[in-house]
């Protein structure tokens, strides 16, 4: 099978992480929005965590998939 699952997982979390980080940066001053999360800009805190996770999955998944495709091409 030529789909390493880490690639779509990585892509999804990279996108979600980027959106959360951007949204968190844009709404940094909106204290009404962050009253819920104890005054912490939770989007700006958690978005980068998901972004790093997504990129790590993407890197490892891509590497494994390239190896897989090379192996299939040799056969």
């Amino acid at each position, binding site marked *: *099978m030529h*789909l390493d*699952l880490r690639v*779509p*997982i990585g*892509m*999804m*979390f990279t*996108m*979600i992480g980027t*959106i*959360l980080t951007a*949204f*968190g940066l844009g*709404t940094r001053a909106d204290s009404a*929005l*962050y009253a*819920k*999360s*104890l005054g*912490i800009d*939770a*989007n700006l*805190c*958690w*978005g980068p965590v*998901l972004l790093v*996770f997504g990129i790590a999955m993407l890197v490892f998944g891509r590497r494994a998939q390239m190896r897989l495709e090379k192996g299939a091409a040799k056969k």
Partner: protein
Amino acid sequence: MANLTSADWLILLIYFFFALSIGLTLKGTVKTSRDYLQAGRSLPAWICGLAFVSVSLGAQQLLGMGASGAQYGFRAIQFFSLGAIPGMLFAGLFLMPLYYGSNARTVPEFLGLRFGKSTRVVSACVLLATAVLSAGAALYAMARIFAALHVFDSLFYAHGLQPANIVPVTLLAAAALVLVYVLLGGLAAALYNQVLQFFVMAAALLPVVLLGLRGSGWSAIKSAAASAAERGPGHAGFGGFVLAALLGFVLSTSYWCTDFRVLQTAMAAKDAESARKAPLIAAAVWLLVPVLLVLPGPIALALPTPHTTEFVRSENGTIYHEIDVAPPADEAGQGAVPAVLDPATGKPLRAAGGTNLLDYTMATPNLLLHFLPGGLLGLGIAALLAGLMSGAAAAITAIHAVFTCDLYQPFIRRNASDGHYLAVARWTAVGAALLALGACGAALRFGWKLESLAMFCAVLSAPLLATVLLGMFWKRATAPGAFAGLAAGIATAGLPAVLGRFASGPRFSWVAWMSSGPARPVDVCLTILAALGLNFVVAFAVSLRTTAQPEAELAGLMHSLAPRPARAPSPWWKRPEALAAAILITAVAINLLFV
């Protein structure tokens, strides 16, 4: 009521897009019924292991773990963690090599190889009923949550749609999405999506628990959990700790060891080694899952209970009265857990101790709404839907495999082409989804007690554990013996519920658990122990009176007769047994933090 921002919608759409795209990508790999029903037996251990976890985090468990956390405090952690891990480890170490090595496609097929047709059909029918009813119950549980959360209201108002349609449309959309990716990519698509769903649930719940810990502080949460534990069975302290773990062990081991909905994930592994590793990986991940999912319960209890407040302020000489109205159910509840109101009077219902009866299932979803700001809230809603979809997909894939392999192929149409069975499997998936939606609709419309029915079926399938154990570990067990034992076990498991319809009353609480509302874990546990015991005794007695099967027929189906893979002996710390022991010790250590 919460309004979703555009960031929330974007995150939900991205999640749906990836769920579908996995199905579309895998479409090309499905050529035979083996590709479709068994994912071509080609998946790596980590995917099978994470899917194993995710299957067991369907809607009922996702909501139920937080609910039991609010109801019984930290006892719920022992129940779900120490109760489950031994069963998972046993399934991985001892059962998977035989399930996988026998080349059976399903668990009933394995029982058929060992004990013949009748045991196979009975176990297939029990599994089908359990899967349909619990998928319906999961849909129903989610329907209640989405009706109470009002997250999609603004979308419906904006398009001039009836708000009464919110629940049916949400459920139909989720069910249709699951059905589409299962029909496209088969079991592989379901498993890949379950791994994705696992990460979405973890990514949404972690920040909630972290914010909750920061907001209320550990000591407030601990005391909320301790006061909840006093309401539960076995009270606080070490006795309650052991009792909760034992109850969990009796109630869940049969599920981990015989339920095809979970085992299908490991049976799709690429080789015997990976199939054996998958439940062990799942157990290692499971070390943290109950902590993450139960903690929202006590955290929700420890929050301040909302009250209707009135503010007066004056601006340019005008006096404004601002009233913040808390709904009566929330006001009568505790923390973020609302009370159950009597639909006739609107007054809160009373529990046995004189306190208000609480709607514990709302603990986790209310906590998501309470802490997650716009943006992360989209991820939270995606996590709730992910839980619903992972459980529903597991039910659908289990149903279409068991129906096609164990009922259609042997009894309705033998020797048809592979393409024919592939088509039958796909139509079965459609039928299963419609049945589950129909059951959910009946529950919404006519008040069917789906949760009790699903629980009843789960109890009926519990004695299967004895049959599997006898089949794998006792050479002398014969086909008539196994069938008689299973029949006796199922009858015993069903008896209390059937009798309870006629003889309810406090004197027969053990007998009446079905009719007297939600079942007490202790009663269900006694029923299961009695059913397992009788299954063993009857199977033992009948087997000894019938002729034994020749050993040649049992090769590969029994622990003592399974082929041992010849490979270089690895050092002891690299063996799966060592990993299993390490997981068990870590589980005890983690649980001791929550005495």
